[in-house]
């Protein structure tokens, strides 16, 4: 920053040169502007002289005879003559030194003419002082010199040859003109000071303007440099954000897939255990026994002690194998469902990447059931009670996969919370409601557990990325769930009375506006039967 405030000597020279140019511009502009003002003023004064002459001295008389008063001719011709030269100079040579010098002389001559035409009225003499003040508008003290010389000369000459006309006293001193000129000089001193000060202010203004221009140039260059840099950084940020986004998406997908894989893994383990402990080996032993006694099978079945129990054993074995089969089918169905959901997660992500949403008409209760099946179905904790309180809500349009992922996350967390709790009455309550919020319909999913609860100071950051209270946690599930809720126009909130007091997660999603043509088309597309 300090670097930008320093002015290099070369730049200083350029600024000074520019300040000089600007000062000249300002001065010439000021002089031209004042020239124009005086051109107008001189013409107006000319008319004023004529008006004064016509009003005060219209005619000169000799008895009954009269003729136009010489003052009128003086006003017309002498007044016009006085104004003519400076007005022409203003037109042909505006802003030049000679022009304003002539204007100064003409202005003073107009004062003299007016004084004569008004009959020497003392009040008219104020025109002299007013004119000097007007001349100071030039901010060039030199114009006061010819004006003062005209006044001094007029008084000096008339003081010598016609003292009464200027001093009102016949026997006035020949040096009394100095007293009158002295008052003019007195005003001159003030006006010269004002002119010099005005010129200095103009120079200061020019200097500041030059510095401002230079600063503007530097600032513009700096802005251009910073803009280019910003653009580069922006590109980097976009690239980084894209990578981060991809990583986040991957994390989300993996997290959701991980949740489902956990269920699949449990079901697969259960199926494996069932297969390992299967009674199929007993059937093999029965086969070996029958093969050994194949020669006299009737005798074996009727006389041998083992043979006599064989039919009953086979019946019992078949029932046992049937139960095993059913159990294996259930577990494999869970595995299949889990794999199907993994497929849906991947598919949903691909769909999301393409279109941004996958809205279909689903029942909130069905979604909860599906999530329960995915997340709690494999639970082996016999003490866990799941309470369902699903309101009768007709199917509504929503992004099924996102909602399902959120619910799976919430259920997974609730399950972990109650399992970690030392209480024996582990309980998860699930509810769905359709409520009215500000005149709009909202679907509310609620997951309430009586698990380990959440510390009050953790509530505010529970949805923050990377925040987790579990050792094995990643701090991503709730974060992505809250983001997903936000993407759907809804919100995910949490409430807890503290540690060991359980927690309640509430997901609220706005009901889709079915009047939207786009959504109707989406619905029609989603609800139409696929070709068989």
């Amino acid at each position: 920053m300090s670097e930008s405030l320093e002015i290099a000597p070369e730049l200083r020279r350029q600024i000074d040169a520019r300040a000089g140019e600007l000062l000249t511009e300002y001065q010439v502009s000021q002089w031209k502007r004042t020239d124009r003002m005086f051109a107008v003023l001189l013409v107006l004064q000319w008319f004023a002289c004529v008006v004064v002459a016509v009003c005060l001295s219209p005619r000169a008389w000799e008895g009954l005879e009269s003729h136009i008063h010489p003052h009128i001719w003086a006003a017309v011709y002498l007044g016009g003559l006085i104004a003519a030269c400076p007005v022409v100079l203003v037109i042909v040579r505006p802003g030049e030194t000679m022009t304003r010098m002539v204007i100064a002389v003409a202005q003073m001559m107009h004062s003299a003419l007016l004084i004569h035409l008004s009959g020497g009225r003392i009040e008219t003499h104020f025109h002299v002082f007013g004119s000097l003040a007007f001349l100071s508008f030039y901010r060039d003290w030199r114009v006061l010199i010819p004006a003062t010389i005209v006044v001094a000369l007029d008084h000096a000459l008339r003081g010598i040859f016609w003292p009464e006309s200027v001093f009102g006293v016949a026997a006035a001193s020949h040096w009394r003109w100095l007293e009158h000129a002295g008052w003019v000089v007195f005003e001159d001193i003030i006006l010269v000071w004002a002119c010099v000060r005005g010129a200095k202010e103009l120079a200061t203004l020019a200097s500041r303007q030059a510095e401002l221009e230079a600063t503007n140039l530097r600032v513009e260059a700096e802005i251009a440099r910073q803009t280019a840099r910003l653009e580069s950084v922006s590109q980097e940020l976009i690239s980084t954000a894209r990578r981060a986004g991809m990583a986040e998406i991957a994390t989300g997908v993996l997290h959701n897939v991980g949740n489902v894989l956990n269920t699949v893994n449990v079901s697969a383990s259960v199926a494996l255990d069932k297969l390992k402990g299967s009674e199929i080996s007993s059937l093999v032993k029965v086969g070996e026994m029958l093969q050994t006694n194949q020669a006299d099978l009737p005798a074996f079945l009727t006389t041998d002690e083992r043979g006599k129990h064989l039919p009953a054993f086979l019946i019992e074995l078949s029932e046992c194998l049937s139960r095993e089969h059913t159990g294996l089918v259930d577990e494999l169905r869970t595995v299949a469902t889990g794999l199907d959901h993994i497929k849906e997660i991947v598919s949903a992500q691909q769909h999301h990447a393409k279109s941004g949403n996958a809205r279909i008409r689903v029942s909130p209760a069905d979604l909860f059931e599906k999530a329960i099946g995915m997340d709690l179905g494999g639970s082996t904790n016999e003490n866990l009670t799941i309470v369902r309180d699903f309101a009768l809500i007709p199917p509504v349009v929503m992004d099924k996969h996102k909602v399902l992922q959120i619910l799976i996350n919430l259920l997974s967390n609730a399950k972990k919370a109650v399992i970690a709790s030392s209480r024996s009455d582990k309980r998860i309550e699930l509810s769905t409601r359709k409520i009215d919020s500000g005149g709009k319909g909202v679907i509310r999913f609620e997951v309430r557990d009586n698990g380990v609860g959440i510390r009050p100071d953790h509530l505010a950051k529970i949805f923050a990325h990377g925040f987790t209270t579990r050792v094995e946690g990643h701090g991503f599930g709730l974060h992505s769930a809250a983001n997903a809720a936000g993407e759907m126009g809804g919100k995910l909130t949490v409430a807890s009375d503290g540690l060991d007091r359980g927690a309640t997660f509430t997901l609220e999603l706005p009901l889709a506006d079915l009047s939207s043509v786009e959504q109707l088309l989406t619905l029609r597309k989603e609800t139409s039967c696929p070709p068989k």
Partner: protein
Amino acid sequence: MIAAWGVAVIMGMYGLVSYQMTPAVLGQPPGKQWPAGVSFSHNSTLPTLIMTLHPQCPCSRASLHELAELMARSAGRLDCRILFVQPANAPADWLDGDLWRQAKAIPNVTISVDKDCRDAAAFGASTSGQVMVYDRSGALRFSGGITDGRGHEGDNAGLFSVLDLVRSGKSAVAATPVYGCSLGVCQIKRK
């Protein structure tokens, strides 16, 4: 061009000043005593001032201004009479003008209309603004103008002379130039 302009302006100003400085013909009273044939008599206790005026003369505005100044400075020690000359064939609005109103505004002044210029002729006045001052005995003590130029206001020798007469009964100057319009017909009548 500028030099020519300067010379022309100086010449114009010189012409204007010359016009204003050129006095009119000063009419000479017929004698040193109050003239015969005047329609009124002089004041026997105060000096009497007579001013003849052409009612349309713009230059006399300054004379009336100075007269007002004189009356103010005299403080009631001067009997003043203004004679507005009115030729026999003057138009009806002859007297109607600024000078009449200006004169009426001066305190302690007698204004009279000099029909057919009889009184002005008796005083030998020929120029508007001419002033004659007679003392208590009716002797002429001053004759001339009380302005220092044509239509030019300001202190002047005539004014100071009359004031000296009023204050001390004597004056160093008995006559001054008069600046104003010619009374014309009155002059002819006098001849």
